[in-house]
């Protein structure tokens, strides 16, 4: 499974993944507040890592190794977004508000719960 077409697809997937990871890193440095940084850190990074892992799964010879890599990809797909979700929720409860927010459903729900 090492034909030139497969390698081409694999390397282009990896390049796409590296691009997304780089964009994520730049976003974490450049974005203004916590929530936008988390946005860069989770979406772009998850996408980048998934593309790199798919590329690696195409490269490796046996299907067992490919399955292992796909399992890692699934693990990453589950853990990274929920970690970001937990961080964002902790930030909100700590009192850090997104500055230009117009809609705040979560805050409203929390207030309602307090009143009860």
């Amino acid at each position, binding site marked *: 499974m090492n034909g030139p077409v497969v390698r081409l697809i694999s390397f282009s997937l990896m390049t796409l993944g590296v691009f997304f990871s780089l964009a994520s890193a730049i976003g974490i440095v450049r974005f203004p507040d916590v929530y936008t940084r988390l946005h860069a850190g989770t979406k772009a990074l998850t996408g980048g890592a998934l593309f790199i892992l798919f590329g690696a799964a195409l490269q490796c010879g046996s299907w067992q190794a490919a399955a292992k890599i796909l399992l890692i990809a699934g*693990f990453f797909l589950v*853990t990274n977004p*929920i970690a970001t*979700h*937990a961080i964002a*929720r902790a930030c909100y*409860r700590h009192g850090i508000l997104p500055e230009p927010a117009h809609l705040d459903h*979560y805050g409203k729900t*929390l207030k309602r*719960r307090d009143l009860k």
Partner: protein
Amino acid sequence: MNPALTGFIFLLLIATAVSACLMKDILSSVIALSVFGVLLSIVFSILQAPDVALTQAVINSGMITSIFLVAYSQTMKVRSGEDNTRVIKTYYPFRTDEMVILFICIGLGFFLWKGIVPMGFSSLSGDAANHYINFAGVETGASNIVAAVLFDYRGFDTLGEIAVIFTTVTGISILFEGSRYHRSSSGLSFIVRRSMAFVIPLIILYASSIVLMGHLSPGGGFQGGTVLATASICFCVVYGSSFEAARIHPWIKETLESTGCLFFAGLGLIGLCTGAGFLANGAAGFPLGTQGTFISGGSIPLLNMAVGMKVGAGLSSLFYSMVKILEAPFEGIPGEVE
């Protein structure tokens, strides 16, 4: 391995270590230390020491970070009654006493370096190392030479390591035993709880595979036990420590830990009874099996299981005894949006 990549990782390693020392905020310092641990595990896997890399990845970036964070929150909470603002001292990067410590560290590093250079980096020196490489498979039946050294040739040292962990866990449990705050948070949000329900079985599966395959592939009791303790830490953090205590009672953990210790010592005593010496493997009559199959290595898989039980239960009860005080009522509003 590409020397440019190795050099780059080493430079990053030094940079994270220095930044962990110089950061004024303890929290950032702990996170820099965690990054340092991940880089160190990459370095170990480049140096072809996957056992150490596994240990390093789990312990330094998972266990130590979480334990440091818990300790940090504990100390912050003690002070929270009088003054909640973070005190930032005026801090000069190089005071005289720190210069003295820096000088001692650099001097020690220099002499270590001078000690390593004559030994050579790639060639093995000493009869013991050559003996292990050449005869470990024949004498112990284990494919993983590290496991063979750890549980057969140097089994007594491993018993000492277990005793160290046992003492640590006992000491910390006694230290935190008399706490009055037996409250638990309700854990993280519904999304996190549901998602971790998918992840935690995989973690436990991985841990048990590391323990059971310790004589065949990199890993073993220490690594697998630590991964098992990580699953328990996930329970404590994600579902709250009362959930953890309800599912796995602390008493069960203590029993498991002591049983692991006794099992290890008992397996050693079998060797003594047969007249082959404490912790003897093949000479004591354990069937060595064929090298590379699941049932091989004599007593090594059993010792791996004992160590896995011991380390997993010990570290998780250590974390539980630390975290159960932390979860005070100010943690937040329980429950989640439906």
